[in-house]
Structure formats: C-alpha cells, structure tokens
C-alpha cells in the first residue's frame, strides 16, 4: 500500500471480467504519518481510506471490463459499513463485483476481509468516462503492471 500516493491496492489476486468479479490484496503499512494523528496512542486505518481501498478494487474491475478504454471516477458510496478496527500491518483481502454496467456509469458491491473477519462493505457507483488524457491511460497501464494486473491476457482475450 503506497498510502502517501493514495495507491491503496498492492496486488490484483484475480479478475474475471466476463463474470464481473475481482479480488485484491492490500497491506496496511506499519508506519505512516497518518497514524500519528489518527489516533495518537491508538493508530487506526481511517475509514475513508478503507472505503477508498474498496473503490480502487472496484475501479480496477471496471477498467478491466472496459479493457483500459475508459476510466471510472468515484460518484457515490452507499450503505458503507465499517465493521471493525484496522490496525497498522493488517493485510486486507478485498473483493468487488459488478452489479450493473450502465451507459457511462457502473454500480458495484465491494467488501474487505482481514484474518477471516469482515472489515467493511459498500455499494459504490462510478461515472465511467473516456480517459481525459492519453498520459493518464499510460500511467494507469503502468500502475496496473505493478499490481500484477493481467494486462496482456486482457488484450489477447
């Protein structure tokens, strides 16, 4: 997890674009300035970052479904539940499924589990738009490679 870059996912574990599902993994760092403030003496992963982790997981799924032709932008988070504290060093196992692929938008359901225990879940909606800049698409492809996203397999499929 590159928390300082807001890149919260470490690895795509698997993605099934035809089935509309994805699993990812993210390790919360042991140390971060975030934990100095949230909270002194009781470091916790902020809930908004847990939601962002789910959004990034679902976002990679949408990128895969669209074969890197379009970019998802977070539009709505509904029924978000933060079920347990997440401390530094926790490994999160995240998953998302596509509930509906609309025209210019997508609705997903995402969740995270740690040590077999439910951490959080939410329904997350994205606007799905053309990449505003070619350089952004290139950067996303490079980021995907770092996450072990099966870019080539997707292109071949």
């Amino acid at each position, binding site marked *: 997890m590159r928390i300082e870059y807001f890149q919260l996912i470490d690895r795509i574990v698997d993605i099934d674009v035809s089935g509309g599902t994805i699993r990812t993994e993210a390790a919360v760092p042991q140390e971060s300035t975030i934990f100095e403030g949230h909270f002194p003496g009781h470091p916790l992963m902020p809930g908004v970052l847990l939601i962002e982790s789910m959004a990034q997981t679902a976002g990679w799924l949408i990128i895969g479904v669209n074969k890197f032709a379009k970019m998802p932008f977070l539009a709505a988070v509904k029924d978000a539940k933060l079920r347990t504290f997440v401390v530094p060093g926790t490994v999160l196992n995240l998953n998302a499924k596509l509930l509906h692929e609309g*025209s210019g938008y997508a*609705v997903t359901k995402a969740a995270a589990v740690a040590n077999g225990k439910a951490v959080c879940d939410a329904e997350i909606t994205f606007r799905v738009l053309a990449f505003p800049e070619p350089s952004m698409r290139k950067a996303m492809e490079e980021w995907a490679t770092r996450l072990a996203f099966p870019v080539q397999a997707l292109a071949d499929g």
Partner: protein
Amino acid sequence: MSSTFDTVANIIAETCDIPRDSIKPESHAIEDLGIDSLDFLDIAFAIDKAFGIKLPLEQWTQEVNDGKATTEQYFVLQNLCTRIDGLVAAKGA
C-alpha cells in the same frame, strides 16, 4: 400492470424524495424537478433494472452536446417513457 410513466414516476419519487403527485408526464426531469446528474445515475440504474434495458445516456449526452438533440427530447418524462418503451420493444424483437 402499471404504465411506464407510473413506474418511472415512482422511481423518481423514491430516489429523489420528490412528492409523487408533483411528477407529471410533461415534467422536465432537470428543469422542473431539479434532478441533478448524480441523482439521474440512480434513476437510470433503477430504470435499467426495472425494464431490463440500458438507457443510452452516453449517446444522448453526446447528441445534446453536439446540438443534434434537445434535453426535452430525453428528459421530459413522457418523451423518456416513449424511449423506454422503444428500448423494451427492441429488446423483445
């Protein structure tokens, strides 16, 4: 079975907390009912699910932006319902 308009009006009332009796066939979703683009995503999701279709929002937006269509053609509810009926009929054809 309720009409397309009744289904759409009920979706709008529930999604946007707008009194049902203020939603008329001649209402413009944006100009009369004040529905913004984010709320319209929720409405589109509910319409897509209810009718088993995919409202072509990207195409409609492009046509309005290009000056080839007016928002009234898509967002006045009776016109929206006509288009929904057309999409449902095309699905069954």
